[in-house]
């Protein structure tokens, strides 16, 4: 029985409330230590822990990318702020925090300010949905995968709102491109996920990972992995598909008119989404926090081993994203859409067929097991 983060925060809050409640007479004491109040506080504590952990992770991810990119480019990246530049991104964030907030003339106030904020918030919500290790999640949601993908696909709306309302032609073009691109790649991603769901028999990310204890899904579903990976590249707007921010033609794309904290929101949310994308790849195809059985138990049973392996895999996946970024040029909008609609969707459909075949093959007597469709 692993200790869940949720149960940790539950224990903390019940301890706290019990201590506070003990000095009060009965009615107050009873109310303070009742399950509802404890759970409410536990959720808050849980969120705080999660927020801090995910933020630190995101900032580490930016550092990781900058250093890795530097190495690809024969240079060293950030070096002088903190050890090996570890504090560089904290400095960047704090600096952006203190820049003055402004709004371009004739920009739409509502959209200009709510766009980045909503983008940031919807990206951060995802951390609450994804499990990190066995039992380490906010609650058992039976449809957590669907929920995660639904929240993930909010982004084009807010990008488009903020691009439109910032009253700049480059922003507008970038926003339109971004919306078209994200919507186009939503479809193959969902179809690729369907293949995973068929194989796992569940929409619950916990169950999907548990199903992978024997074999990771990237083997039978390599086509789906490819589609999902490419789709994630497009969703994250990373380099072969970074047209919305295409530096060469659209100055900075949809965030051209944003500076200071709002720009920091965009920047941070981009990397939050990059982290989420890598997490999803690991969860769906690379076995989450599970390790193959031939790995010695000593390596998988130390405290927090699940989180350790999970994050290791995530960073490895992200390193592949960075590698792609360092070595590929950028495609054009029409080519991107053509790839999305005409290559990725047929491939995704093929992967569904393959998943069905795998499920059927599992019925064969040689494997000695029954299909687990529907749990």
């Amino acid at each position: 029985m692993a200790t869940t983060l949720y149960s940790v925060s539950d224990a903390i809050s019940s301890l706290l409330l019990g201590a506070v409640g003990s000095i009060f007479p009965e009615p107050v004491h009873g109310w303070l230590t009742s399950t509802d109040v404890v759970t409410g506080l536990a959720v808050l504590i849980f969120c705080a822990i999660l927020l801090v952990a995910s933020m630190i992770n995101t900032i580490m991810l930016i550092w990781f990318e900058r250093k890795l990119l530097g190495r690809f480019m024969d240079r060293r990246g950030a070096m002088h702020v903190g050890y090996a530049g570890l504090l560089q991104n904290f400095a960047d964030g704090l600096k952006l925090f203190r820049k003055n907030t402004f709004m371009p003339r004739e920009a739409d106030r509502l959209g200009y300010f709510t766009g980045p904020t909503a983008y940031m918030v919807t990206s951060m919500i995802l951390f609450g949905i994804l499990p990190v290790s066995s039992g380490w999640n906010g609650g058992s949601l039976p449809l957590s995968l669907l929920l995660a993908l639904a929240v993930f696909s909010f982004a084009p709306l807010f990008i488009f709102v903020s691009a439109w309302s910032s009253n700049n032609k480059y922003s507008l073009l970038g926003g339109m491109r971004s919306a078209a691109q994200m919507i186009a790649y939503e479809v193959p991603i969902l179809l690729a996920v369907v293949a995973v769901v068929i194989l796992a028999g569940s929409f619950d990310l916990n169950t999907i990972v548990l199903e992978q204890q024997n074999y990771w899904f990237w083997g039978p579903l390599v086509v789906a992995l490819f589609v999902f990976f490419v789709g994630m590249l497009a969703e994250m707007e990373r380099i072969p598909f970074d047209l919305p921010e295409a530096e060469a033609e659209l100055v900075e794309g949809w965030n051209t008119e944003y500076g200071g904290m709002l720009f920091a929101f965009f920047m941070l949310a981009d990397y939050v989404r990059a982290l989420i994308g890598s997490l999803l790849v690991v969860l769906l195809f690379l076995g989450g926090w599970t390790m193959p059985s031939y790995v010695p138990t000593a390596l998988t049973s130390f405290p927090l081993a699940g989180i350790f392996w999970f994050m290791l895999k995530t960073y490895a996946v992200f390193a592949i994203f960075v590698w792609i970024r360092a070595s590929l040029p950028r495609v054009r909008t029409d080519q991107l859409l053509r790839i999305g609609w005409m290559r990725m969707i047929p491939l995704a459909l093929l992967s569904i067929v393959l998943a069905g075949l795998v499920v059927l093959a599992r019925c064969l007597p040689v494997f000695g097991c029954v299909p687990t469709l529907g749990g």
Partner: protein
Amino acid sequence: MGPVSTPVVTPRPPPAPTGPELPMASQPAVPFLEIETLRAREFLPAAKEALSAMVQEQAQGKLIRPVFNWAGRNSLFPLHWGLACCAIEFAAAFGARWDAERFGVLPRSSPRQSDLLIVNGTVTWKVAHKLITLYEQMPEPKWVIAMGNCATGGGPFRTAYSVVPGVNKLVPVDVYIAGCPPRPEALLDGILTLETLIRERGE
């Protein structure tokens, strides 16, 4: 203003004279209860005093400000634009050999996201108002480096009819870098000088 002008440090006012200190023995003995009430009574004013002192210190920029100062001077995002010859050396400074990103210097293409305007080349009257626009589009706090002789004072084109003799006629300049064009080391030195300047000014 020279390249590295040390800011004028206003001397701290001498400590306010305090009254003659009472010797310990002459303090009146206070009953235990009185002390308790006194403390309880004086808690709020004391807290208020401490808080206001903190606020005052904050206003003088002694609490949070150093942190933000550290952040600001360590992550200077220059505007990514090239005027003339110096722009090539500006690009070389971000190349593999000099790698200005080591110091957290990362060029951004949009003036909204940058806080350092490096005027890397000759400024002509035709581009002057665009330069001012770019400078005004950058959010505060912002700094300007005049890179090279042309930006500093017109350089070899000083006498020409179309050249602004020094960008300080258009925007306030913090650091001047000599050279035609300055080597990338000189640019890095200028940026580090600016960092020192920001620390000394306590911006």
